[in-house]
């Protein structure tokens, strides 16, 4: 075939908006058609012309891509074949999505489900089966409008806004969370909450109505962007890692109502049923690679934070796709998908534990790395996560959830001394899907920012409750947090669960979690504002306020999903056996919480009570089971372990670990959540600092290039 025939019809330079408002719309829609089959190419061209569209055709994907790059505003929609000799149609799709963000329609004679699915995961807005009929083409304009509308949800009249291709999306789609902004400002909005909190949008710098010059994300620019993201991911930073799991026994047990009071970081409690017990896990994530930082690193004149933010969002989606595809292939997320609630599982727990460990300085860098690796690749050592902290390396055994829940609960308990067993106490009886979910959840780690603690640095725990599949890459997050001493090993995350690099998974996680993250350190007000965190079913970011793991007032109760009856749970659970104690033990426990000032030693009961009360206060309604609970620990700064009472072990990332069916002696759980080194105050101050800095959550996610928590709901 001739090389890239590109017959261009009259180029219509006006913006899409203008054209949309044009009476003749969708006439004049500028379509770029790519297909290596000359017959099909000609037929489709003719069909599109019959629809009064402006057609530019090319039989080479590369040529089409360069046309798009040269003339970013020149097209409204791209239609591409899947099977092409020079470039896979999906690749083209991704490029277009990343660089130009135009709607792309895939087509093929192949109608097999997996190919169509691929189209979906790669972000195609439609998939046509050949032979294509003209009727199918008549309505493609809807994709253009839809995309536009999503980008500028607030625009009543998108005609006034910038063209569809405007890379600078001020308005995040309603369904997406403006993670970048959120991250920066420490606000997190779930998509649900988004609508309710539109005013928050206005607070952001980016105003949707402003017309901003469109940024062309050239290959070079994108490379710079990726470099910056990667760099940030590697940087250590304060992260809040926070994972708390508390078992709720039976239907009537109360979940651990750990609520971060006024925390800016939303966290989500996910109820996991494991080993016959319900575990509630609280996850929180704080992303590191935020647009502002990326922008700074890139140092490109004329580039704005908003440009980066919107690009970051797309990038995350792209990575997510990659990871989800690979996950899909590896069957990782199958079960995960279906159980958003249960997901925030164990794996995240691991991450958290790791983080916690790291924070406490107990976790050597390698451990984190291992952990991350484990989390990421799930191929982590099979060693029981419940390994005593002593051997911190073991902590990073993010293995399959199944593995995680080794019988080893006992040993975990035994081992606790200052050790955090990541998957401590995870009952093996966990249902597969639970496990999978947990595994999934492991991906989201809440990274605790342990700034105060020298060691606690980083933690990118991205606990992302991702209703979608999550990659264990989150483990990386955990890695990040090692206190400075732990040099972050190269992200083992890079071991993609599947063929994809970690990026994918982490990415996904982030996005998912991001929606939930509410990084507000403020106590009450923040939480309220951020309400969304609680609600989101899929990303539960828990904000960890070191001081207040159990927040007495869960302002964020908004986040509670309807029907979420935290209160009920809380009430019921007074005597709940905090299997978490396992958690506690996992954590290693420092059994002497009392001696640790500032430790986040919170006895479960304490937490529960507080949580209950706070939840109540906040009028949280809840479903009968807490699928998400915001837990914040709140104790006046020091969480004193309750002797003998069920202990809430806030084990970063470790909640799942402690899930176990049997009741562990309370005392064993006294520990804390964070090892001694981690001072609550430190954490608190770290958090506050972060908050002050505009809510930028700096989490060292430790993963390459993408910050999972950028609040990108995936």
């Amino acid at each position, binding site marked *: 075939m001739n090389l890239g025939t590109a017959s261009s019809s009259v180029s219509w330079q006006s913006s899409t908006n203008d054209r949309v408002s044009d009476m003749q719309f969708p006439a004049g829609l500028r379509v770029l058609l790519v297909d290596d089959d000359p*017959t099909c190419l000609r037929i489709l061209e003719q069909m599109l012309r019959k629809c009064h569209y402006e057609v530019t055709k090319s039989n080479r994907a590369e040529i089409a891509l360069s046309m798009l790059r040269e003339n970013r505003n020149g097209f409204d929609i791209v239609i591409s074949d899947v099977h092409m000799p020079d470039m896979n149609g999906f690749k083209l799709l991704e490029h277009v999505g990343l660089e130009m963000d135009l709607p792309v329609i895939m087509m093929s004679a192949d109608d097999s489900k997996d190919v169509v699915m691929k189209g979906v995961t790669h972000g195609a807005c439609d998939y046509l089966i050949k032979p294509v009929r003209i009727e199918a083409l008549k309505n493609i304009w809807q994709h253009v409008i839809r995309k536009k509308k999503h980008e500028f949800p607030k625009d009543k009249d998108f005609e006034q806004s910038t063209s569809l291709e405007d890379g600078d999306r001020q308005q995040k789609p309603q369904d997406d969370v403006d993670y970048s902004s959120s991250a920066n400002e420490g606000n997190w909005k779930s998509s649900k909450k988004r609508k309710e909190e539109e005013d928050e949008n206005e607070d952001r710098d980016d105003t949707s109505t402003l017309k901003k010059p469109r940024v062309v994300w050239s290959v070079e620019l994108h490379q710079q962007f990726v470099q910056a993201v990667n760099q940030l991911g590697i940087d250590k930073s304060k992260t809040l890692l926070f994972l708390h799991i508390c078992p709720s026994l039976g239907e009537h047990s109360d979940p651990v109502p750990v609520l971060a009071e006024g925390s800016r970081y939303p966290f989500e409690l996910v109820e996991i049923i494991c080993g016959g017990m319900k575990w509630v896990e609280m996850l929180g994530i704080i992303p590191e690679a935020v647009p502002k930082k990326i922008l700074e690193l890139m140092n490109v004149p004329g580039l704005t934070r908003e440009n980066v933010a919107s690009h970051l969002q797309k990038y995350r989606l792209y990575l997510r796709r990659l990871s989800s595809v690979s996950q899909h292939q590896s069957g990782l997320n199958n079960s995960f998908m279906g159980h958003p609630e249960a997901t925030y599982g164990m794996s995240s727990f691991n991450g958290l534990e790791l983080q916690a460990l790291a924070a406490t300085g107990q976790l050597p860098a390698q451990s984190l790395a291992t952990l991350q690796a484990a989390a990421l690749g799930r191929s982590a050592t099979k060693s029981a996560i419940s390994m005593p902290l002593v051997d911190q390396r073991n902590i990073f055994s993010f293995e399959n959830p199944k593995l995680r829940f080794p019988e080893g609960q006992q040993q975990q308990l035994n081992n606790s001394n200052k050790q955090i067993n990541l998957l401590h106490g995870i009952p093996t009886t966990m249902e597969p899907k639970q496990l999978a979910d947990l595994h999934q959840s492991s991906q989201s780690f809440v990274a605790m920012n342990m700034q105060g603690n020298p060691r606690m640095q980083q933690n990118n725990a991205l606990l992302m409750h991702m209703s979608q599949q999550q990659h264990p890459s989150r483990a990386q997050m955990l890695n990040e947090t090692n206190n400075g001493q732990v040099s972050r090993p190269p992200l083992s995350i890079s071991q993609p669960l599947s063929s994809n690099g970690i990026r994918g998974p982490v990415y996904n996680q982030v996005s998912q979690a991001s929606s939930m993250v509410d990084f507000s350190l403020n106590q009450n007000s923040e939480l309220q504002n951020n309400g969304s965190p609680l609600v989101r079913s899929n990303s539960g970011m828990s904000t960890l306020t070191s001081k207040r793991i159990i927040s007495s007032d869960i302002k964020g109760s908004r986040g509670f999903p309807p029907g979420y009856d935290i209160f009920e749970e809380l009430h019921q659970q007074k005597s709940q056996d905090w299997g978490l104690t396992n958690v506690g033990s996992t954590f290693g426990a420092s059994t002497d919480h009392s001696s640790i000032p500032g430790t986040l030693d919170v006895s479960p009961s304490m937490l529960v009570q507080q949580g209950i009360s706070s939840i109540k206060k906040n009028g949280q309604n809840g479903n009968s089971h807490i699928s998400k609970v915001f837990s914040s620990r709140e104790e006046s700064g020091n969480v004193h372990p309750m002797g003998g009472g069920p202990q809430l072990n806030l084990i970063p990332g470790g909640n799942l670990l402690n899930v176990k069916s049997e009741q562990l002696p309370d005392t064993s759980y006294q520990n804390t959540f964070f090892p001694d080194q981690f001072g609550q105050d430190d954490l608190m101050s770290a958090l506050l600092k972060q908050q002050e800095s505009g809510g930028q959550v700096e989490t060292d996610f430790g993963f390459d290039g993408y910050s999972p928590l950028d609040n990108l709901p995936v």
Partner: protein
Amino acid sequence: MEIVGKLQKQFMDFMSSLYREGFLDDQFLQLQKLQDESNPDFVVEVVSLFFEDSEKLLNNLAMALQQQVVDFKQVDAHVHQFKGSSSSIGAQRVKNACVGFRNFCEEKNLDGCIQCLQHAKHEYFLVKNKLETLFRLEQQILAAGGTVPIIS
């Protein structure tokens, strides 16, 4: 006029038989609808493209199957392409031949593939012949001053 009438009838009958015998399907009708004043020779143009492309594909297929070590993936890719283009112009029997062909590719059944190739080739030349006849008829009608009837 007589002649035109006759030719037109001949044309319509022939066209109907092509549909009836499965040489062409509804997609061909779609192509005819796309033809208009601004593109008066659209169908001929597209069909010519199809012929050109198909012959290349068939050659590639023959070569691929003659290799010492047959790359079935490559063969399948060609067949897939052939299937796509034949379905786009409505060459139904060719398309059907491709479907079976792909199955043999998946099974890596060389003999099956070779047979399918023969079959596909056969169908292709059949439909090519038919279409050429059709176009000739059209030309004759136009030459006689008539208009080509539109079949819906």
